[in-house]
Every structure is written in C-alpha cells, then in structure tokens.
C-alpha cells in the first residue's frame, strides 16, 4: 500500500478512500498499542510537534497530546488566551516564530475557516487541522467513521443521520465527506434555519422530523447547538429545540430497532440528548474518545513518515 496522497491533513475533502483505509489500518495497530501495559512506542522520538489552539478545546487537545506522547514526539503547547496573539501578532508570524524553534509539525485549531490551508501554503511544516471554524474537523470525522466500522463491522452501506446545528458544524461537513467516501448514506436533520441552503448538493438527504430520520438510520450522530457561533436567533428557545430535536430514552426505545448513538462532545445533557441516552448501551460516545487517540496517532505517524531530514 502507498503512503497518504496528501502532505497535510487539512480536510477530509482532500483525502481518497485509500487514504482513509490506510489511516484506519494503521489505527488498528495503535489501538492495540494503547491497550498494552506500556502504551508508548519510540517511532517519533526525533519529531517536535506544536499544538496551537486559538479556540477552546478539551477532548481534541488532550487526545492530540496523548497521541503525540504515545508516539514519543516532543511537544510544545500554545493557547491563544495566554499568548502574544492578544498583542496583535499575525497567524503567520506566530507560527513562523514557533517554527524557528525547529518544529516539524503543527496541530492547529482556529476559529477562521481556511486557517489550516492558509498556513500550509506559507510555512514549512506538516499541518494537521484540529478544527478550523465552521469548515472541517477531519480527525473527528475519521474517528467517527472508525467507531462505526468497529461497532457495525463496516461503514459502506450504512445509513447515518447527523442531527442538530449543521450550519455551524465542522464535524457535520467532515463527517459527510468521510462517510460518503466510505460508501455510507448520509442524512442531515435539524431546524430548517440550521441546515445550510445548498447542502443537498453534497448528495445528502434532508429531514426536519427527528422520528422519521431515526427510523431511517442505523447510526445517529447527535451534534451540539453551537451557541457561541450563532450571531442571531435561529430557533425560539433551547427548550423548544430540545422537544423537537432532542433524543430521549422514550423516543429511542419506541423505534423498532437498535440504532447506534454517537456524539462528538461536549454534550449538553438534556438539550440534544438526555443523560440516560448518553449513558445507554446503544451509545458509543466513550468508544469514540478512545478511538480518537488511535486515529490521531495514525494520522501523525503517517504524516511524519513524509518529513525529509
């Protein structure tokens, strides 16, 4: 098998099906590694990685850090809140300063769509996009698809519905690309105001009734309402949203089949899903988190293999 077709991981849109399968196969091996008594391999001991987080994150940041540490890379962390960005430094200047300290790879989360691509064209390091505004969040989509593959055996032919704030969600867009490349059918479900106008051009079904969407699907990926990105009111109240698009145990049990419930986190319990659903047997939310480390190890390992010395 060949190496990845890309030099950076900017978005799932740039990947081929073979790339995704290579990442999954590599992640299988890393999943075995992180369940060993000693969860660390020395592959990347000569690589330095900078984690640049211009936006808040818990899971993704910890997951990337753990992945890097388990590959024995050296890491430096940076968050916007405590940096010179506040003093007016530009993105390229910030990153070039970090790179002159001999960094080989940059993992970046940024509030502006396209920030990762912009950076990859201007600096000499491998870039991994850890979320750029409302654009893409490729490692999340990879770990979601990987978790579906683990739970259901395969992604091809499966029906996946993404529920919630599709308009502001980078997870939704990356998931649509990833699932479609692997041969799954995708539907989006949410209030019309939170569904992008031209989304059906991506080849996804659109549904405004949650029950109908759930009856159609094998997997439901429940997204959070991204209030921090909503500049105007898109629906009357969270309570109304929750009544129409929230998944509770009664609704889940009333379906005539066992669907798989996913959530990329952070969960707003009681809004998009209730606690008993999040903690139910059908939920694979914590498996997603575990798989996240293996997927990120695979992505970093494969990209690091392309660094010339």
């Amino acid at each position, binding site marked *: 098998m060949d190496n990845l077709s890309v030099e950076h991981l900017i978005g799932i849109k740039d990947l081929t099906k073979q790339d995704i399968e290579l990442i999954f196969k590599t992640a299988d*091996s890393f999943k075995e*590694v992180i369940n060993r008594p000693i969860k660390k391999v020395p*592959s990347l001991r000569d690589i330095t990685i900078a984690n640049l987080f211009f936006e808040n994150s818990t899971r993704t940041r910890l997951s990337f850090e753990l992945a890097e540490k388990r590959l024995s890379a050296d890491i430096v962390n940076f968050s916007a809140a405590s940096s010179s960005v506040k003093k007016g430094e530009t993105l390229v200047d910030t990153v070039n300063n970090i790179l002159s300290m001999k960094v080989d790879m940059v993992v970046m989360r940024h509030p502006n769509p396209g920030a990762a691509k912009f950076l990859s064209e201007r600096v000499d390091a491998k870039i991994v996009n850890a979320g750029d505004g409302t654009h893409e969040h490729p490692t999340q989509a990879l770990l979601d698809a990987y978790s579906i593959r683990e739970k259901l055996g395969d992604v091809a032919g499966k029906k996946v519905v993404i529920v919630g704030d599709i308009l502001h969600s980078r997870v939704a867009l990356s998931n649509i690309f990833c699932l479609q490349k692997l041969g799954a059918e995708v539907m989006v479900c949410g209030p019309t105001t939170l569904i992008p106008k031209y989304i059906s051009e991506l080849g996804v079904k659109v549904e405004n009734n949650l029950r109908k969407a759930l009856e159609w699907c094998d997997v439901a990926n429940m997204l959070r309402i991204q209030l921090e990105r909503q500049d105007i009111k898109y629906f009357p109240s969270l309570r109304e949203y929750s009544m129409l698009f929230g998944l509770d145990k009664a609704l889940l049990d009333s379906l005539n089949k066992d669907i798989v419930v996913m959530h990329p986190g952070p969960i707003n319990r009681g809004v998009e899903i209730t606690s008993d659903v999040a903690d139910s047997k059908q939920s694979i939310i914590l498996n997603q988190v575990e798989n996240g480390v293996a997927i990120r190890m695979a992505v970093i390992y494969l990209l690091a*293999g392309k660094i010339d010395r």
Partner: protein
Amino acid sequence: METQEIINSRHFELTLNRLCQELIENHGDFSETVLIGLQPRGVNVLTRLKKLLETILGKEVKCGALDITFYRDDFRRRERPLIPSATNIDFVIEKKKVVLIDDVLYTGRTIRAGLDALLAFGRPSEVELLAFVDRRFKRELPIQADYIGKAVDTLNEERVSVEWKEIEGEDKVLLFTPTNSNG
C-alpha cells in the same frame, strides 16, 4: 537472477525437529518459557515449532506474535511507510524466559527493535534468539542467535527467502543471486 535451493523440504523438516530438541534441552517442559515470533515471517517459524513442540511435550506452549514496525530505526529513511502487522501477546512476560523467533537473521536491526518492543510487555528474566537461517558475518549490530537452523554465507546483493508449504506450497529455503554479480 540465479536461484539456488539451500534447504529442500526433507532437510527443512529435519531442521525444525532439531531446533525443537535443542529448545527442549534448554527449556524442559516450557513452564517458564514463552515463544515470541517476529511479524510477519518469524510467525511462520513459530507456528510450525509450536505444533511440533506440543506434539512432543503433550502440552500447550505459550506463544505470541510481536510486530516491531514502530520500533524500527529506519523510519523516514524509507520511500514508503511500513505497514504494521498485528501484535498478539495476551500474557505478561515478566520474569519469563523468552525465545524470540525470526526466519532470517541478517543485519540484526530487526532483533534490536524486537528487544525494544518486548520491554513494553514486561521484563523477561532472559531472552534468547532463534533464527531459521543465519546470514552470518553480515551483522551491523552485536547480536547473535542461540539456535540456528542453517548458517549461510551470502553477499549483500543476495536475498534469502524461507518458503512454507502453508503459504507458498512447499517447504524450502531459496537463495537469489543477481546474475551481474561476480561473487
């Protein structure tokens, strides 16, 4: 390319049997010993030895497969990334005697990585090495095998391939020599 058969199928069986007897001589009933095959091709040697040993001893011998991809010292010096195989060691090797098993011992670098990888599963009391074919005098590291199926003298341009009836259809060891070689 010139091909030479250095071990035929009859000789192959004899060699495996002799290696079993040597192992039994040193490890008795294998109560404190585990056999670990290196992925991918060392596992073939392991599978066959395990079968023979269990027939002779009449009991199960603990075995595992170890992949050393992430421990190699030539990561990023190759054209393509190495695709790992599965590691399958479902026991702790702490205080056990370990016999590492590979099909061909050449530069010793795979074994070096194997020793490193092994430590992730505990601290063995001792580690030995079994090589089905030893390309002697070609070592780049100070590593020697304790059990050797056959020692061969080879040139660097040559290639040694151990073939198995389960995979290639016949048990044999082949030596490939490029025709332009004057050695």
